[in-house]
């Protein structure tokens, strides 16, 4: 499954911030780590700040810090800020969608969408950070 670039940047960013909510992280540091344009990232961070998930920090050092609740925020809360999940209507429908074949295919695609939505809704940022930690432990191996 492919998420849009902005959505991935948003998820990378909130997870970076949520890893240590007390830490201020600059946009430049995240842009460098994820090899993305600082300008592009700034737009995403601005959107996250408007939604109250992060807050910008004034003064020496500056940057952003996490402003949400990692145990309550889900991947879906972030994703739906940048992705469209509602079925398109009117002239936004894909060509052929209203044909019998189009509708049958739509039934199958809806199955996949529903599973994806349920998955994203059920994973909080805290659960994602636990997954990250488990994977890092596996990579480090027994010590």
């Amino acid at each position, binding site marked *: 499954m492919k998420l849009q670039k902005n959505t991935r940047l948003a998820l990378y960013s909130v997870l970076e911030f949520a890893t240590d909510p007390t830490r201020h992280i600059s946009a430049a540091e995240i842009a460098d780590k994820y090899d993305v344009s600082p300008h592009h990232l700034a737009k995403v961070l601005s959107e996250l700040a408007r939604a109250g998930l992060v807050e910008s920090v004034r003064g020496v050092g500056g940057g952003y810090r996490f402003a949400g609740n990692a145990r309550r925020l*889900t991947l879906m809360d972030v994703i739906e800020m940048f992705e469209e999940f509602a079925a398109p209507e009117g002239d936004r429908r894909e060509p052929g969608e209203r044909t019998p074949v189009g509708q049958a295919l739509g039934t199958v695609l809806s199955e996949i969408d*529903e*599973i994806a939505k*349920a998955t994203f*809704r*059920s994973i*909080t940022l805290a659960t994602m950070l*636990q997954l990250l930690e*488990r994977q890092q432990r596996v990579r480090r191996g027994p010590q």
Partner: protein
Amino acid sequence: MTATRAARPASKGTRGGAPPEPACASIRPVRRGDLDPIVALDARVTGLEKRAYWETLYLRYGASTRAEHQFLVADAGGRVVGFVIGEVRDWEFGAPPCGWVFAIDVHPDVRLAGIGTRLLEAICAGFRRAGVSTVRTMLSRDNNLVLSFFRSQGMMTGPFIPLEMDLDAVD
């Protein structure tokens, strides 16, 4: 297989006294005397009293001496505040023996205190003693509360896809 219990949002208060202290909860095998509070807890959460169903479950999983059958409760100062039920199933759906959790619930007044985690840990320990190393469960994709709980315990989507068919709609 019975689906994992759906959970309604916690109510604002309790009936029958102050809520028990979750920190004091111990996990132990179910006893016959636990059935009344279990029936009541399930009825509170699901809105349905299913006494006969719980009697059957007790006979199959609670009164059983088989290590593969597990029916555990969380006991907080003598009050049952949660339960978990599961069993080891062999070669179902083509899978090697593994543990299945098919019911788990915690009293709404004592949630978010780690009791669900301890119930799951206890039943998983039982599954390990019974010789299996994988635990599975299945629940409605609309049951976000319990889905999130299992996810928070480290469970990920398994290699199975549940399918269904409306028999009345088949020609």
